[in-house]
């Protein structure tokens, strides 16, 4: 077929231009900004002062930023393990032919539909509150006074309270991805395995799990992206000022970009903000590559 080059150009140029303008340009600009000392994000280039890797070194030497990275890593790792395990378990149960699949699927997904602000307020005020929260009342009713007296939102427990409540909402999302993967697997395999005498558990470990490698990779990458953007939950668990147990890089970046809320810290640093953006971007790129290397699914065809 003869290709009409001018036609191809005419159709691709608008899309390419838009892509360059809205994706590539901001990325390149952010990378450049991260090497400059800039006060406001909208400062003209003439006001930028080149500072080399100073933004990065200052960030990595800052104990609060280190804490925020450590918190992010812990949310990613512990939260990832909890979410992947629980959502896979639920997905397996729901695809095993239980009654009311549609209802449970919708119910488990529901927290994703509700605004994060409402969800976090519910957890903070009605679950974790130490005077009238659900956990306190529940353990009191069972006369487990030691558990009832735990202050879920104090410095020692706040991180875990945050993690659990965040994971609770995210399980439905990842469960749906698992379900779509499981439903892709032909029932023939299970029937054949059943005839050969494999029980449900064996079927899961020898058929479902190996065939879900690609889905696991998708889930890990999706999870990493949402964790890198972790912000609202941290803000709600520590309103007004960041807290060492809940601070994450996005919160740190927000304070750097716009100053603190409740106090007179008005100095702004868009250069550092850009550097944090680049660090978070690299975090995802690294995980994406590692996940792609470790979880190759091109050796299986089904």
């Amino acid at each position, binding site marked *: 077929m003869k290709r009409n080059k001018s036609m191809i150009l005419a159709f691709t140029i608008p899309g390419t231009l838009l892509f360059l303008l809205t994706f590539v340009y901001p990325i390149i600009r952010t990378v450049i900004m991260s090497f400059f000392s800039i*006060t*406001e*994000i*909208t*400062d*003209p280039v003439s006001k930028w002062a080149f500072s080399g890797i100073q933004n990065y070194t200052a960030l990595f030497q*800052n*104990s*609060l930023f*280190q*804490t925020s990275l450590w918190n992010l890593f812990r949310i990613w790792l512990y939260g990832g393990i909890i979410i992947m395990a629980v959502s896979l378990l639920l997905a397996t149960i729901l695809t095993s032919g239980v009654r009311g699949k549609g209802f449970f699927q919708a119910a488990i997904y529901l927290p994703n539909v509700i605004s994060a602000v409402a969800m976090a307020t519910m957890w*903070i*005020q009605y679950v*974790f*509150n*130490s*005077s*009238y929260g659900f956990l306190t009342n529940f353990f009191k009713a069972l006369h487990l006074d030691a558990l009832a007296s735990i*202050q*879920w*939102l*104090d*410095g020692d*427990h*706040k991180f875990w309270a945050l993690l659990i409540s965040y994971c609770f909402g995210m399980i439905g999302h990842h469960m749906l991805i698992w379900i779509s993967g499981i439903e892709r697997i032909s029932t023939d395999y299970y029937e054949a395995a059943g005839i050969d005498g494999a029980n449900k558990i064996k079927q899961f470990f020898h058929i479902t799990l190996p065939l879900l490698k690609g889905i696991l990779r998708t889930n890990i990458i999706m999870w990493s992206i949402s964790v890198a953007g972790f912000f609202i939950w941290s803000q709600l*668990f*520590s*309103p*007004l*000022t*960041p*807290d*060492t147990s809940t601070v994450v890089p996005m919160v740190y970046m927000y304070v750097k970009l*716009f*100053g*603190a*809320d*409740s*106090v*007179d*810290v*008005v*100095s*702004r640093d868009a250069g550092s903000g850009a550097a944090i953006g680049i660090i978070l971007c690299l975090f995802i790129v690294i995980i994406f590559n590692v996940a792609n290397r470790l979880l190759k699914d091109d050796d299986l065809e089904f």
Partner: protein
Amino acid sequence: MKKRIAATLLTGILTLTMLAGCAQGSGQTETSGTTPAAQPAGSTAAGGENTDAPDYSGIKLVYWSNWEATEPQGIVIKEAVEAYEKETGVEIDLEFKGRKGIKEGLIPALDADQQVDLFDGQGNKSNYGDRTVSLEDLVKQFDYEKDTNPVMMELARSYTDGVLKEIPYQFKANAYLYNKKLFRDAGIDKAPSNWTEFLDTCQKLKDSGVIPLTTDDAYAPQAFGMHLARLMGSDGVNEVMFNENGGWERPEVLQAAKAFEDLAGKGYFSPLVGSNVWPTGQNTEFAVGKAAMYCVGTYVPNEVKTITGGDFEWGFFNYPEVEGGVNGTEAMVVGAQSFAITSKCEHPEAAFGLIEKLTRGEYDAKLAAETLGLPADLNNTSWPAELTELHDDFPDLRRC
């Protein structure tokens, strides 16, 4: 790492710390009777109906407010803007952007050449740089300064190298708010003014079965910062914050920490204080009368008025003096909200007229009454009943 957070908060607290002592000069100058080209509304009578109001017909102003339209401040501001429009013929596009809207959106909007003539928001607008204009000439032209608390004007100037670029209003002070009824029930007839009396007060409250102290995560460092400032003065705390001259290793830091350890050890804090995520302590312990004292700002009575109702007996005392400290109770943490005019504004007189309308006479009194706040106009002597006890302590050089 906790240090860093405390440091951030302390920065805020300390930039607000002003000495209320009479020795400080107010910087107030007698203004000459220059008559401006466009005759502004008479400063003291600006709030009321003014037949001499200037004619600003054909002028359009854009005003971004950091309040929400439904907040008491927003409601009064809207009324004042409408009255000002009626009086002067100016057209005002009032937009309630909320705190985040101003913080995140205003500078980008100004940099993108969007028309915003004036805005309000948290005091200290030094980060706006040359996006806001000097108000010194307008203040002279309107003979404005004589009716505003000189300490607050000095504080406003201090943010921008001595040049006035923001007009303060909605003043606040930070120290201990307390529940007078609980004090009375515990047999306490006088608020503590030094640390020994403070400990005694806590003990009496505890003996009467009341929780003496509570706080929330967001406000916990306030008391610590003030304690440190009592011990070593503002300059000393600055050194701690920026870790200069020994900074965090200085003995006063440990001394302050020990003082709080002592309070906690004696059981003066609420048992739930560790898990109070703002506003839990404020709303469910202090406002409902379970806890007697809360170290915070004077904006809290307004925030909790729907919980406390009208019967709550508000008390206020400045942070107690500590033994061997540099500062006594003559030092107080104060601050304000403020108005500023942008460099985009082509009619600064009209914009300043509106600021005057909002901070003088009728609407200033209304703003104070509706928000249980402090009036900006010195001629408005009716302070909210909730903050009566602050009246004698609040820095006002004119009374000296």
